[in-house]
């Protein structure tokens, strides 16, 4: 349903992306998916990991500015039109998307889309009402293994 995403403030400078990634690597934490927003001056790294509490602690100890945001994970078929069909539903429900990114587990014919909505609770209710498969965190994390 709702997932906790970590977002990190990064200066747009060489080697600044490496610091959090190395910290997670050293702690044995695997990144399930990520997205990086960039501007001329700074970037925002968004991460989905299994144990976000532990990851947050590791990143904060590495000196990163970390925030948490609730995002919504939706499963679609990995085929042409999988996303477009979902966007039709979202449009009809009158929900605005702040940003989104996607990932697959490299097997099967399913893809997971991660959405940031202004009001995640409202979005989940509307999507479920429209019959969209909103993915529970626990089931999502268990799939990756």
């Amino acid at each position, binding site marked *: 349903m709702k997932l906790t995403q970590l977002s990190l*403030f990064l200066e747009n400078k060489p080697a600044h992306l490496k610091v959090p990634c190395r910290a997670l690597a050293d702690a044995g934490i695997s990144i399930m998916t990520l997205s990086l927003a960039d501007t001329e*001056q700074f970037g925002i790294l968004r991460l989905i990991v299994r144990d976000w509490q532990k990851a947050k602690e590791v990143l904060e100890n590495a000196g990163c*500015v970390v*925030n948490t945001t609730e995002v919504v994970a939706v499963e679609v078929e990995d085929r042409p039109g999988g996303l477009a069909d979902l966007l039709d539903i979202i449009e009809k429900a009158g929900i605005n998307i702040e940003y989104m990114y996607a990932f697959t587990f490299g097997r099967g014919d399913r893809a997971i889309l991660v959405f940031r909505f202004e009001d995640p609770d409202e979005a989940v209710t509307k999507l479920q009402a429209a019959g969209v498969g909103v993915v529970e965190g626990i089931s999502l994390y268990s799939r990756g293994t």
Partner: protein
Amino acid sequence: MKSKKSASCGGFHPVSAPDYLPQTQLRQLQLARLKCIVKRAYENVSLHRQRMEEKGITPDDIQSLEDITKLHFTMKDDLREAYPFGMFASPMDEVVRVHASSGTTGKPTVVAYTQEDVNVWTNVMVRSFVSCGCHRGDIIQNAYGYGLFTGGLGAHYGAEALGATVIPMSGGNTDRQIMIMKDFGSNAISCTPSYFVHLAERALEMGIDLRDLPLRIGVFGAEPWSDGLRQRAEEIGGIKAYDIYGLSEIIGPGVAIECAMQEGLHIFEDHFYPEIIDPETCEAVPPGEEGELVLTTLSKMAMPLLRYRTRDITRMIPEACGCGRTICRMARIGRRSDDMFIIRGVNVYPSQIEAALLKVEGTSPHYQIVLTRAKGLDQMEVQFEVTPEMFGDTVGSVENLQRTLCHAIESTIGVRAKITLVEPHSIERSQGKAKRVIDKREG
């Protein structure tokens, strides 16, 4: 034990008696001391004698406190030119201590103390600690630097004479400061306000909340700081933060101090005679108006200074203080006439930028101002450390924050600044005075 936080706010201490002198008695004391010190300066320091001769006056021309305006001013440069011992009024066998300023450009300025001077300094530091609510039995962690800088030893002797237990930490070594603060149960800390905030934040990273410790008082000085920074220091530390003022040329810390009212600093005017002048015309400003603080040492033996231009901008507060002290009171010093910088023709003080930034919710007091010149035009960049409280997950929210900060600065000083958000800890932490301005402009 939470109750320690709200323990006693001071009370009377016999050493503080001069703080409550009746006005007539205080003026008599000042005049008697002024006459002596002018004579001493005239007879023993060639610079003072020459300046007085140029003005055609002798010590006999000082017959009232108002006559002080007949005297010349003494400047920082005068002290530099007299390097090292040219301003001393005592023979070296009476000088028991010297201190020196950091001397960021060229030679430092050297100051001297006889045993009597050290005793006076200790006396005003005891009165300072009492004014902040420290008392016998308190554990005072002194994190001012020990050495040529006056902060460390000045606070040290005062705290000892008060009957407190001094931890002579000196500056730096933050993790150790925190460990000792926690293990020894320090009740008060003396250091620069910017360093205290750094220390409190570091403690949180180490899992220690200063609000849970017996610490209740901060005696902060050696750099101008805003009320916004005071609020941050008090919140993060669970303390009362008091402003202490001093300068090595006059004696060191202990020239003036806040009381429990936290509405201006009481100047120990039985030893330091204050005037407020217009820095351009050098004339006295009307009572209560802002100008440059000028100080005359009334009892300094080894190095008397007549009408020393401090460069610090303040004003006198004429109303009687609620604490009952009768000695005069000046407003907190928010700026120095020499840390002002001019950008596109506008006079700006770092403290104005600090005040503007700290008005924005969730901001940290870690910032630096970088001045550059591009195509003949001055550019001001304010680098500012992002905190989790002020940072969102969308580009829009971060850009909004930049706009808010930019607007806060522009509406305060009238000049547009480029706001650069930087990662935490990327602005260098000072163990002493924070370096706020980096001027890369040429010429």
